[in-house]
């Protein structure tokens, strides 16, 4: 039973990462973008993301955990995109995960390649003006069961999952606004039928410096404030609904991004849950922090 709980936990975490925040290919750090150009789409991206899950919550309220369970997940995905046309992008995402579980009585950890993911994104609306653009893109994700889910903690769910999302982005001069919504269709594995998910992200971006961007390329510092949310339905174990699964988490995610030239940027983000309502009794995320780079190779 404990193993199932941790598969559900890690699975939910990785799904949230896969479907939205962690593997976003946009200039916002945790939200996707409809712009598939330059460092905003064509760049190979990797980052380290630390997720701390130190406390038990019951119906959204923090409670004392008799086992004192603490989970720490370190995710390092490598996203490799390829632009088929100026509007169509495909990508492969290879996430490496180090998950560790610590209780009063045991310490377990596991490291390896998690479920590999592929996506295709198509920009189907584009309205350009002088120093401004508004674009909308839709994306289909496929997550394959490539990870080791037999061990504890599991590195993935062992299920083949799908996600469909749409993102709109408006950028004018120093300001960018991005809105993303999506639906995750999760399948089953080993008697566990994973609940489907909604994801919803809002990102506000602001170019701190330079105030006036004259000649490309110039060093650039962007600040982001994002809301990254997901709501996951309860999973079922052997056809019985698990009351201690699924729920809603919405993070407030401030972040900074420094673009040093044509070919690279570094970025960091901190995520604090402002809504933290896992269903029933579950371990809940306290915060996440990420630091990453994007490199333009072609």
């Amino acid at each position: 039973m404990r193993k199932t709980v941790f598969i559900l936990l890690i699975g939910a975490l990785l799904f949230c990462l896969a479907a939205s925040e962690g593997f976003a290919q946009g200039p916002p750090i945790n939200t996707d973008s409809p712009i598939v150009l330059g460092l905003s789409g064509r760049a190979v991206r990797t980052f380290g993301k630390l997720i701390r899950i130190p406390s038990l919550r019951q119906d959204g309220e923090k409670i004392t955990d008799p086992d004192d369970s603490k989970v720490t997940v370190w995710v390092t995905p490598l996203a490799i995109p390829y632009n088929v046309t100026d509007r169509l992008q495909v990508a492969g995402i290879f996430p490496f995960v180090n998950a560790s579980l610590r209780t009063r009585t045991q310490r377990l950890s596991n490291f390896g390649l998690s479920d590999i993911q592929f996506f295709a994104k198509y920009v189907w609306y584009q309205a350009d003006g002088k120093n401004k653009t508004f674009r909308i893109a839709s994306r289909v994700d496929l997550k394959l069961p490539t990870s080791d889910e037999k061990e504890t903690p599991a590195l993935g769910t062992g299920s083949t999952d799908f996600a469909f999302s749409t993102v709109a982005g408006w950028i004018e001069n120093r300001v960018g606004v991005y809105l993303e919504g999506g639906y995750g269709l999760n399948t089953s594995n080993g008697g566990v039928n994973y609940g489907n998910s909604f994801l919803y992200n809002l990102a506000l971006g602001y170019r701190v410096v330079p105030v006036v961007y004259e000649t490309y390329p110039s060093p650039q510092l962007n600040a982001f404030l994002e809301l990254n949310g997901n709501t996951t339905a309860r999973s079922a174990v052997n056809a019985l609904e698990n009351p201690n699964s699924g729920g809603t988490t919405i993070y407030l995610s401030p972040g900074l991004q420094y673009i040093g030239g044509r070919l690279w940027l570094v970025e960091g983000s901190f995520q604090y849950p402002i809504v933290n309502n896992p269903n029933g009794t579950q371990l809940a995320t306290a915060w996440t922090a990420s630091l990453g780079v994007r490199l333009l190779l072609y």
Partner: protein
Amino acid sequence: MNTRRLLVVITIILAPWLGSQTIAQVEQVDLGVDGLACPFCSYGLEKKLNEIKGVDEVSIYIDKGIASIKGNKGESIDVDQLDPVVKDAGFTTREISVVAVGKITMSEGRPVLLANDNNTNFILKSNEALEKLLNQLAGAERSVRVVGTLMNEMPQNHKGHPYTLTIREFTL
């Protein structure tokens, strides 16, 4: 003596070609690009513009929404590639402003700026600057440097270049 004679013969053979290289070419383009709102998206545009035939240097001015292109000395920038390249890079062409050198001739009853290969010609749109230029030329075939805006519009039955050029300034 033989060498000198050979050089004279080569010069005579190449003279028309050499002459046309120097009398007509697009030396510089200021390309108005819409959608240039995120500087970090500009890499592909810069790279693709640099690959256009005749291009020596590309500078992208984000605040003005302009890609400024300088041509190689003695070569003409291939303006036919500009709009497809901008689209291929994920942006939208707003306007194409050029500095071009050429001869003014008449073709199919219309004044044109004749480019070096006799295929690249810009039909000149009637305006005050063109009238002034034609008056000053008074029928003489002289080299002229013009600054103007290209519009992608093909007059009916015209088989030449698809651009018309609206002259803003000129020097003889």
